[in-house]
């Protein structure tokens, strides 16, 4: 994942542009605006969030006005418009999951990471937030982590420990290898 600030100019890699081109080919001629959501997902997967210069570049690529990109990026909750932790834990907070303990799990995550919803841990590794029903109510409580949006289901405090500690360990090991 590349680190960028909100003033830095963004240059999409040729690999990324190849992916953009493939997406645009899915729609009729002149309807390339349809590619906007899939492309924003790719941009977020690359940088961890979507900066204003990145949105401007997407607008340029799709031949749209920048405002057309801003209004879409702000409407959809999956798009992060400010930097996040490397791993964003998105926990379902909707009714059916609350029947099986989602509120307790959110409290536990808040305590364990020691940051409030939407904030990033000092080491830059984690942030977390409540999201709405993830269509996994039968296996709640549930959370997911982008950019692959892997689901972690039937959560317990022990499983949260295992997940967070595992990600910390993985990061530490990767750092040693470099």
């Amino acid at each position, binding site marked *: 994942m590349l680190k960028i600030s909100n003033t830095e100019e963004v240059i999409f890699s040729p690999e990324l542009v190849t992916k953009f081109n493939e997406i645009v080919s*899915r729609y*009729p001629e002149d*309807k390339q*605006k*349809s*590619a*906007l*959501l*899939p492309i*924003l*997902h790719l941009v977020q997967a690359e940088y961890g969030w979507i900066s204003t210069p990145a949105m401007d570049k997407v607008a340029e690529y799709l031949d749209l006005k920048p405002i*057309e990109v801003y*209004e*879409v990026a702000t*409407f*959809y*909750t*999956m*798009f992060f418009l400010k930097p996040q932790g490397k791993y964003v834990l*998105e926990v379902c*907070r*909707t*009714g*059916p999951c*609350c*029947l*099986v303990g989602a509120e307790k799990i959110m409290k536990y995550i808040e305590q364990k990471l020691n940051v409030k919803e939407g904030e990033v841990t000092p080491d830059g590794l984690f942030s977390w937030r409540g*999201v*709405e*029903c*993830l*269509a*996994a*109510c*039968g*296996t*709640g409580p549930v959370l*997911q982590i*982008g*950019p*692959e*949006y*892997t*689901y972690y289901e039937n959560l317990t405090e022990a499983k949260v420990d295992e997940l967070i500690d595992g990600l910390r360990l993985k990061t530490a090991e990767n750092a040693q290898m470099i």
Partner: protein
Amino acid sequence: MGRKLLLENINVPGINTFEVYRQKGGYRAVEKALKSMSPEDVVEEVKKSGLRGRGGAGFPTGMKWSFLAKPEGKPRYLVCNGDESEPGTFKDRYLMTYIPHLLIEGMIVSSYALGANTSYIYVRGEMMPQIRILEKAIAEAKNAGLLGKNILGSGYDLELYVQPGGGAYICGEETALIESLEGKRGNPRIKPPFPAISGLYNCPTVVNNVESIAATVPIINDGADEYAKMGIGRSTGTKLISASGNLNKPGVYEIELGVSVEEFIYSDEYCGGIANGKRMKAVVAGGSSVPILPANLILKTANGENRLITYESLADGGFATGTMLGSGGFVVFDEDQCIVRNTWNYSRFYHHESCGQCSPCREGTGWMEKVLHRLEYGHGKLSDIDLLVDVSKKIEGNTICPLGDAAAWPVASAIRHFRDEFEWHVTHPDEAMQRNYGLAHYADPLPKPEGVTAN
């Protein structure tokens, strides 16, 4: 065991791959439709089957298809609705994860019936794993000559793509979904014109739920008559039910329409009863948008008949004593659950998800959330309860899309059936913070159908 049509092979190892799916008789419906039926024949067959839309509204699928305009020189589109964001519903995700080729096969058959040469499956962005699964399945089908140009030598061409959403419940509403697929904010359109006349890129468009599309496969394979033999009356065939909440065995179950609610919740074939030996307090039967019912009314209608899982039986008694099948999301509450808290949670959800175009929905959902929050946290007044009913009535029917109704009904029904629990939160604010109201004596005795009006 009841007969299954969609999930029959779900436990076959490797059924998510093309080879195994094909070995098990997969893509027979494509061969049959493209080689021996005209598009009109397919539409007619689906009409005869009595299949009703599985996305929530229950509109007859074949009839919807027959409304599709066919102007010269304009492409037509089929868009599959895989947005599945209705709280309590997770059947489409299940189907796409474990038997993706069933959806691809259904998309080919349905696109052929509608004369669409490009079709899209719109899947909510959170389901990125399912998007990858579908993309792989599409590539496999294309490799086998079941997608692309001149499918099976029939002269019919079809390209199929998966489109991710961006996290917005409202994009499940079909016109918002179309806007989103065009790369815009998910603001529902004012109808008419209906998508059948002017939908995606202003071309005639059909939007159908994942399960509806999948159901066309057994309908074409076995014939409409076979399909219509299953079920009761105008509720034909099978339905995927997503069961969640305080159950011994939550999960996705395919039932023949007409199974009784009691059997579904308590029998070992299905949910196996309430978890931890507790008693059942309430059920939301069709996803979060439909009225909640207390245990006695979900098991039996106000006339004392067994409540069945059909469109008609669940709606029996109207809004006074009934509910709706909706998307088939069964959320089951045990005796320890707090109805006020749950109602507040749902209101918070609808307020968060309102697109903000119409003021009754935008303002009303926020107002309900605020009032419910203060009731739940012990700062409410008795007059707040009637205020909520009043606000919900002002939203209902006064908005561009049905999200307004979906936000109003859960509140109105919770107060209708559990008013004493709301009152208890006002009269016993401290106690309400410490413990739950439990089963008390809600909705008891059964209300007489003629004595109660909707709302």
